[in-house]
């Protein structure tokens, strides 16, 4: 994308957000819509400021962020290990890839009560739940990355006398890397969503719990404030991750 195109896209995106917030503002200030359904924007803002100032945001984030980090770390380690081991063998790919992608299609949410049963109401159940969700896209992409290395690159490397390690280091790894990174990105956001979702369903603390609680108490403005923090965090993370990913791509 050229500089001018990028600027154009950015201004379109900004305009979209501006329109969204203007409509929200006009609708809530000008009409009789009850603040139970859609709170006034300045109220949401003052709630956000209040949550940040009182330290409640910090306390909730201190529960949720480590939970996401642990869930993603487990998903990444197991996903890459399983994906790599399976992806190296054509037979294992044929055998296990359909099983894994079939399991990925099952809504793991259905098993959420089991996670609570096994790991308790604390963060551990959310770690396990987020890890279970994030594992599949990471494993599947790692399999795809390592099993789809072009045969003619392997043949050429072998003809040039590459050792097993050199074949891995200079052919398999760089060929698989972009696909594996895409899997990590998808896995991260799925773990992220699963942890927050798990917290809203059943949890003792954390940002998801705070959103669910505000909703139950009909404090809609506060609920939107919490959601606002999550949306902001997601946007920032998305930009960071995409930038990191594009740096590893060469073509």
């Amino acid at each position, binding site marked *: 994308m050229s500089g001018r195109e990028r600027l154009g896209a950015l201004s379109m995106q900004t305009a979209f957000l501006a329109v969204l917030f203007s409509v929200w503002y006009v609708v809530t200030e000008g009409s009789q819509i009850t603040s139970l359904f859609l709170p006034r924007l300045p109220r949401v803002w003052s709630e956000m400021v209040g949550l940040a100032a009182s330290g409640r945001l910090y306390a909730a984030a201190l529960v949720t962020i480590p939970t996401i980090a642990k869930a993603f770390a487990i998903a990444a380690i197991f996903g890459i290990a399983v994906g790599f081991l399976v992806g190296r063998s054509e037979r294992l790919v044929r055998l296990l890839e359909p099983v894994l992608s079939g399991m990925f299609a099952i809504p793991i949410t259905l098993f959420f009560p089991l996670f609570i049963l096994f790991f308790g109401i604390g963060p551990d159940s959310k770690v396990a739940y987020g890890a279970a969700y994030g594992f599949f896209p990471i494993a599947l992409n790692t399999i795809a990355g390592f099993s789809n290395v072009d045969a*003619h*690159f392997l*043949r050429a*490397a072998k*003809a040039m*006398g590459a050792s097993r390690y050199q074949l891995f280091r200079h052919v398999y790894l*760089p060929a698989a*890397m972009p696909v594996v990174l895409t899997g990590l990105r998808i896995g991260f956001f799925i773990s992220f969503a699963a942890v927050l979702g798990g917290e809203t369903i059943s949890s003792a603390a954390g940002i998801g719990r705070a959103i669910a609680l505000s909703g139950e108490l009909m404090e809609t403005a506060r609920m939107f404030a919490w959601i606002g923090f999550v949306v902001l965090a997601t946007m920032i993370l998305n930009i960071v991750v995409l930038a990191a990913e594009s740096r590893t791509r*060469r073509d």
Partner: protein
Amino acid sequence: MTVDMRNGAAQPTQAVAIAIDRVSQRFPGRSGTNPMLALDDVSLEIRRGEFVCLIGPSGCGKSTLLNIVGGLIAPSAGSVRIGRNTVNGARPREIAFVFQESTLFPWYTVLENFRIALKFQGVEGGGWRDRAMAALRAVGMENFAEHYPSQLSVGMKQRINLARGLCVETDIILMDEPFAALDEQTRMVLGEDLSVLLARTGRTIVFVTHSLAEAVFLAGRIVVMTARPGRVKAIIDVPAPHPRSPDFMLAPQFSTIRNDLFALLRDEIRQTVAAMREARDGARP
């Protein structure tokens, strides 16, 4: 036609570089069908510094034979010797491959591709850069050393592929239709370049091609293969020294040899087409 082991251009006393001794290759058939015989009792001796073209109809096992010579496939029967050693695996110190597709690794720059090729071959330490740049200069691509393959055209990539094959300084280069993906004009230019480069380096080359003109223009000897199962049908000498200029294509000698080749191949191609039709009709319910 002459079935003579001597290359018209080389001295008759040259040592044998590659000895293919009664090689056969059988591939397992697809579920239940009979195994497919790709090569049937092929014997051939190639002398040092010779340029041999393998030509034959599609599926006659030319590429298979090349892969067997290079040690990438083990033959079902027979053996190949390089000098005094029997081939039983890749021999990167003696044999370089140039394939039809560009096998430049897209995640490395052109220069890094050369470094990796030398590293794979076991050449470590300094000097690789000079060797790589010299090889790139030889094909006129020295200004593209820092480019990634995706930034180059098909012709440029294949030029560099060729340079990489030369750069590893093996005695033998096996080329599997290296110009097949190129348009006719680029192909002619690269063929000329190759002829010039070869006259300088004196490597032993086995070159698989579909193109009659390419075979006559480049080869010292042309090995014509039969339709599947591949056997050696005839060997034709092309007694003209390298480097050959494009004028060689206008010489009467060129057309005579090309016509001989065509006559030899025509029957084989018909047979291949007939076998394909039969397979197709047989497969119908």
